[in-house]
């Protein structure tokens, strides 16, 4: 049996715990505490990490980790990203400056993004239309990144599954290129 890891990151309230719960075999383990950050209207927040998992038909397991949202815990992000299959960055469009929020995670995972499959899911676009997805794409382009960028409602399982499928497509692209390289030699 093999075990793999997918990582979910994003700001407080972006929906990491909910996203993990949407695809986990069991309710995610959470390490929430009372939120003492008065700037965020949320009673509880994750200070450690969230954990869920799902099992494949061959017995392999995919573990789902949610990072703590606050950037002061960024030392944990790199630890969690080690040997991950992919990274889901969740953006909350209802926050004052979601593009700046995204920048924090792009910086925090800068080294990993050179190889690690990554997708950005933008939540609450229905109620907060600006910035739109094209604004996010422009930000990524300014940083020389072309990452999949999807609207997401983490309460909807299909949306979370699509994020995961997008990570898988990136893995497939890598593998195909590997095969071509070997063929050429």
């Amino acid at each position: 049996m093999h075990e793999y890891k997918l990582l979910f990151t994003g700001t407080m309230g972006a929906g990491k715990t909910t996203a993990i719960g949407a695809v986990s075999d069991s309710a995610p383990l959470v390490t929430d505490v009372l939120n003492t950050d008065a700037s965020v209207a949320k009673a509880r927040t994750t200070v450690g990490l969230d954990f869920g998992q799902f099992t494949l038909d061959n017995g392999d397991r995919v573990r789902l980790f949610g990072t703590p949202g606050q950037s002061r815990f960024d030392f944990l992000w790199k630890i969690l990203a080690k040997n991950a299959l992919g990274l889901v960055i969740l953006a909350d469009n209802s926050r004052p400056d979601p593009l700046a929020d995204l920048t924090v995670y792009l910086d925090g995972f800068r080294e990993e993004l050179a190889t690690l499959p990554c997708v950005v899911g933008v939540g609450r676009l229905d109620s907060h239309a600006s910035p739109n997805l094209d604004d996010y794409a422009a930000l990524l382009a300014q940083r020389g990144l072309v990452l999949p960028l999807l609207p997401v409602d983490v309460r909807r399982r299909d949306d979370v599954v699509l994020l995961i499928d997008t990570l898988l497509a990136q893995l497939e692209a890598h593998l195909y290129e590997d095969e071509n390289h070997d063929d050429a030699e």
Partner: protein
Amino acid sequence: MTAFTLGVHNLPAAEVVLIKTLMRLFPATATFKWRFAETGPFDAVVTDATNASSEVPAGLARGVLKITRTDAATDADCITRPIRAEQLQEWLALQGELLRLVPRPSVRTESRAVTTQAGGTRFKLRRWPSAALLQNDPQRIRLATLLSRRALAAHELARISRLPAEQCQAFVDSLQQTGLIEVVRVEAAAAKRKPAPSAPVLARPLAGGLIDGIRRRFGL
């Protein structure tokens, strides 16, 4: 008379919104029939002349209006910022007259030209496509994702995605018409080829089974 289509290419979002708004406000007359279009090819396109990456790809539009910095306009196809309604309307009216003199090429001809060009090339995304182009369609999103990671020919795209080759080619064509993909010659790609930065934890036999296993798990 069929309305002419106006698109935008690499313009700041605020100016795109402005142009869309103006296009809704311009009254349609017997000699002025224009509408805004999200995807090309267009009859005319507005682009940012101050951005070096804003060169309009061949075949995207027959007329190009460049937006420049204040007092930098140099020709009739150039207007200065801020975009003024009367200037845009005037340019579109003139452009409409010119376009009526030159028949619009058939879509079939344009499509074939792109396909022929694509024969010996691979494509890689420069920037994630607009939501309007992807339409939140999982298949389009998967194709765009593959192209975001690697330069691929349309037939390679079809092989990896297991989608029909015609569908992949059509998607590549639409990306190319909007200037979102970089064309990579196969010879150049082969010369530069080096081991891909594979996802670090995956051995290939494991990876194929894992990907299929996860997709089965979620009914994909």
